[in-house]
Structures are given as C-alpha cells and as structure tokens.
C-alpha cells in the first residue's frame, strides 16, 4: 500500500493525490505462513520532491520515511498487517505520521489456480500535516505469476478517502505492477510501476496523474529474509521525481517447532 497524501494546488492543479513514499511495494499473492510474523522496515528517501508547504502539509523533498510493517500469518489463506509510519526531515525532526491495518486473504494453493490471487484491504489514519485526507481505505486485488526466471505481479488498487477534502472524489484508481528476472538464485531485478490515475469515473489529465517507475532488485539471500532495493523516477509534474527505497524484512516463527509440526 502507498500511503496517500493529499496535496492541493501543486503546479496550479486543483486537489489531487501526491506520491505516498511510505511503503513502495508491489504485492505478491503469497501470504505469511500461519503462525509466522513478518517484520519489515521500509526506508524511503525522496531526493527530488515537492519543495513547498501547501495547505499546511510538509513538503516531501528530502523527507526520510521509515515504516515498520508487522504482518502475522493467521492460516494458509489469511494474514493481518499493521503499519507504523514515521517521517524525518530537516526542520521537522522525526514525527509519527499514522497507522494502518491491512487484513488480506488469498486463494489457497489447494485450489490449483494457474496464477496467485489475493485481496487486501487497508484502513488507516495519517496526521493532517502529512495528509489532509486523514482517514483512507484501500482495496487491492493482487495477481501474480512466476514463469521460469520471470516474475509478474499486478495490483489494480482502488482507494477512497473517508475523511478529508477528497471524500467527494469517490474511488481512485492507483495501480501498481512489477516484473523481474532471476539472474541467479539470489539476485532478481526488474521494473516496478506505481501510478495514481485519479477518479475511477474520470481519469485525471496526465500532468495531474502520478506515474513512477522504479528499477528494483530483490535479494533472495535466505527464506527468512526479504530484501528489496530500488531507485524511482517520477515522470509527471505531480509525482516526486527521484526516490530511493529499501525494504528489509525478516520472518519469525512463534515458539519452537518440532520436526513433526
């Protein structure tokens, strides 16, 4: 999920969504194994972003975002994630931004579907100095497929503001997609795409849309670890222009599992 920040008046535009930059990730369909806890730290730095204070919202330029994501596997088709968003910036120090909760279900392996499919929904709050839309909701279908050395994932997400100036916008279409190639067992690399097209019923003009491409690599050093590093370019006026992201995740199993478990 990408935390949505409402920014008004950017480059003469009316109200629109700005780049999230808190959790920059295209989801795969797999859920965390039952009983396991996945702990992820998302570190994102906006090197070239919005430089002005608009409607009391801090600019994104040179913001360092640290997000802690905790995901607990409940059974083999259900997990619940919880996020703590923080931001660090010269002049503003380190601040808590908000929290989200994200239940997710998936099609179990025993259904033998040819693609991985899951559906996540995310509800959360963010402070007004980071987003005028303080309560938001997201519905994210997730479809992925591994074919030989290639991996493909698409997240055609829909987002909605529950409290804030964009309540009237209704559903917003904010898809993400990814492909990668396994160069070795440990190193995969490819492209990630994040966008926000605006209202589902009325797509924004291109310069008001967010369009961002990341060159990213996944390092599969161990089944317990998840590492993703990337650099992103925003290609429209409404998108932060240059970001660096890093995700480090570690899987933990509760208790001691014997060989018979």
């Amino acid at each position: 999920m990408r935390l949505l920040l409402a920014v008004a008046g950017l480059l003469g535009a009316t109200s629109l969504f700005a780049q999230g930059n808190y959790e920059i990730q295209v989801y795969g369909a797999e859920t965390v194994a039952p009983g396991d806890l996945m702990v992820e730290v998302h570190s994102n730095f906006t090197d070239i972003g919005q430089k002005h204070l608009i409607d009391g919202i801090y600019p994104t330029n040179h913001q360092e975002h640290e997000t802690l994501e905790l995901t607990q596997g409940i059974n083999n088709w259900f997990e619940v994630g919880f996020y703590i968003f923080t931001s660090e910036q010269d002049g503003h120090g380190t601040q808590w931004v908000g929290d989200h909760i994200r239940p997710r279900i998936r099609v179990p392996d025993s259904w033998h579907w040819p693609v991985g499919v899951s559906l996540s929904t995310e509800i959360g709050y963010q402070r007004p100095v980071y987003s005028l839309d303080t309560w938001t909701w997201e519905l994210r279908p997730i479809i992925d497929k591994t074919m030989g050395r290639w991996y493909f994932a698409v997240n055609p997400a829909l987002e909605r503001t529950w409290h804030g100036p964009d309540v009237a916008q209704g559903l917003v279409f904010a898809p993400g997609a990814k492909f990668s190639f396994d160069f070795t067992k440990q190193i995969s690399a490819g492209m990630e795409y994040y966008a926000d097209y605006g209202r589902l019923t009325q797509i924004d003009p291109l310069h008001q849309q967010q369009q961002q491409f990341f060159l990213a690599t996944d390092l599969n050093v161990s089944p317990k670890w998840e590492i993703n590093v990337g650099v992103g370019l925003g290609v429209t006026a409404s998108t932060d222009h240059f970001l660096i992201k890093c995700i480090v995740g570690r899987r933990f199993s509760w208790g001691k599992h014997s060989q018979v478990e």
Partner: protein
Amino acid sequence: MGAAFAIRNAEARQVPADYSIEISPHSFEAAPRRTIKTTAYNSQVPGPLLRLKEGKPITIDVTNRTRIPEVLHWHGLFLPPELDGAMEEGTPMIPPDARVRYTFTPRPSGFRWYHTHTFAGRDLSKGQYSGQHGFLYIEPRENPGRYDQEFFLALHDWNGHFLGSEDGSMEPSYDISTINGRVLGFGDPLRVKTGQRVLLHIVNSSATDVHWVAMAGHQFQVIALDGNALPRSTPVPMLRLAPAERVSALVEMNNPGRWILGEVRKHIQAAGMGIVVEYADQSGKPQWQQPAGLSWAYSGFAALGTAPARDPAVVEIPLVFKSKFEGHGNLDRWTINGKSFPDTDTIALHRGQRYRLLLKNDSDDDHPVHLHRHIFELRRISNQETHGVFKDTVLVDAHTQTDVEFTADDPGMTLFHCHQQAHMDKGFMLLFRYA
C-alpha cells in the same frame, strides 16, 4: 538365471499368462467425496499383488490401454535391460493398445514392487505421480520368518501442484496422502488378533516425498530393507521410507485396542496418510500417540562388529550430485559429476569387479538414489563406516556422502538415478555399461 524375454501382441495371446496387468485410466474415491482421476494397474490402487516364487519361471502380460506409450519397471529384480523397464537401458516402450508378454525367472527373493518409469515433467498426474504402482513379492525357497498374518501397504501422495520451496525453486506439494489409496478412516482397517505376529510390507510409492510412519502403542521389528534380510533386527518406534524404499517389519500384537498406523508428521497425517489397526472385539475411536520427533538410521540395522577394512581391489567411482538453478518458477536441473542426463558420462563396468560408489550430495535436497538390476551394500554413511545392509535405493542426505558397494554381476545397461520424479525428469540419471 532362466530365460528372460518379452514378446509382443499376437504372440502374447496364444497361451494365458500367469498374471495380466492392464494399464488404463482409473477413478477412485480416496476420501469421502474426493475422487482422484489417475492411471492405474487393473483399475485398482495399488495394483494387484504379484506373488511369485523364487526361481520359478513366470509369464506376465502387460497391456497398455492409455493413449501414451508406457513402460513398467520391475523394481529390485535382476532382469536383463530389455525387460527391466527403463527405456534409457533399452527396454522398448509399450505403445497404446499394445500387449507385451514378459517371461522371466524371478529373483532375488523378497519384497519388490513394480511401477511406471515414464517422464512426467510439469504434469503431476503422470509418471510416478499417478497410481501406477503395485506390490511384487518373491517368496524365498525357504521362508526365514515366522508370522501369523501379513499386510502390504503403499504410501502415496496425490493431487500435486508446484509450490515455491525454501531452497528457492519449485517443488511438488500434495493435497491428499493415502495408504493403499485411502485416507485415514476411510478404508478397511487392518484386522488383527491379540498375540499375533503381523508382518508389514510397506513401500513408499510417492513420486517425491519421504515419509515417516509409526504405529501407536506398538514398535516395529524391522527384518528387511528393500526386500533384503538384515543382519540385525532392532525394535524401532517409527520407520522412514524415501521414495521407492521398502521396509518389511514384524509387529507383536500385544496391546489390544484400535490404533492408528500413520505418518508421524501432523500435517501429512491430516492430509490422510494413515490406516486403522483394529484388534478383534475392540471398538472406539482409533488412538494416536504423537511422537515428539523423527528418528531413523540405516546403521541401526547394520552388522555388529567393526566394518571390514577397505579392499584396495575395489574400484571407487565418485558421483557428485548438484543442482543448477533455472528460475524461481522452475524445477532445478540436476547434475551428476557436472553433467545432466542424457549428457552424463556412461561409466564402464567390468564383470566380476567390485565397485564402490562415492555418493556425494552437494545439494540442499535429500536424494533417494536407485541402482537398477543390482543390489548394493551400504558401506559408509556420512562419516560412519557400516556393513551388512543391502539395498537397491538409499537416501543420501543433503550435504553428506554415502558410500555403497556392489559387484558387477548382471551384464547390460544399468540405470542409476534419483527416484524423486522431479529430479530424474530434470537430468538426475546416468547409465553404467558393461565393458
């Protein structure tokens, strides 16, 4: 050894055979409302028990009623390559709607089995993933064991699908696991009486998975591995069977009740791998006593005393197993000494020579490797010398070395391979030839 040959079609119909096996599509109910569509022998899973007598010639007709060429491997028998049942050795495939008559003199005695030996690839309904497996027992001229009743049990996994595994590649995973084609509680129980000595012959016919089985309230007295008598029979709480391995074990029926004989690992027993053992006049819910861990060691059945020193006349053949990554969405490719079948080197053997295979597993997976048409002796497991245990399939644990010795006494092309279907399909095979 008597004459051994195969004849085809019209010639095979003139005189009735001792046994007939028909390979055909088959549907069966493994669990309530869980029908499995597969290919089986004589429309049953497992196939019929073939009970042969050591040294007595036998004729068996095999008819292929499927749409694809098939081949049937007589696992553990000393047969010439054209009959053994591996096209890599030169056994002709049985075309659709063809019948082949096999005539041979069965040996060696003991618990063997028969199964398909075809390629499956990514189709987890073919090859060893299917129901093409059956028991074959060659009665010895003199029976050394005393027992009151015997049962033949086949462990199998069904409805496979590929999942990403911890080692980064795809591996088959299964929805249903059965004993003799039924999930726990669905098939008939094994009916026994107090005071009986019951002989269990168990084969793991799973295409890929190792299984551990225990019988609540009882222990196993293992008397043979892969059909070969052991020098020492030690009571054990559970059995481990890698794909293609067989265990023959006596159980003293001295604890009346209704018990579960089943997979030790909880999720596999929950998938169905178990069978009820029912004493006469006993009722109630079958009982299971969950072992805390897994235990098994080949060396527990080895001959006592120091293993004989290495004979310098024995020729060593190092075989190193490695995997080659081909993508997180693929199965690994497998190599022996750096080469993948059919590009592996064909190794020359000299008749009468004794060989020591140094099986070095440099991969993250355990491999049940099988030598066709011969029996080998376990001589070293990891760093422990051993002797006296004879087998045709041995599980070589990941990142360990196991040494086995055999005498080249059965001329002809001889296949050596991992019995994990997904591994043999991806190149884990090589051939020995007699010079």
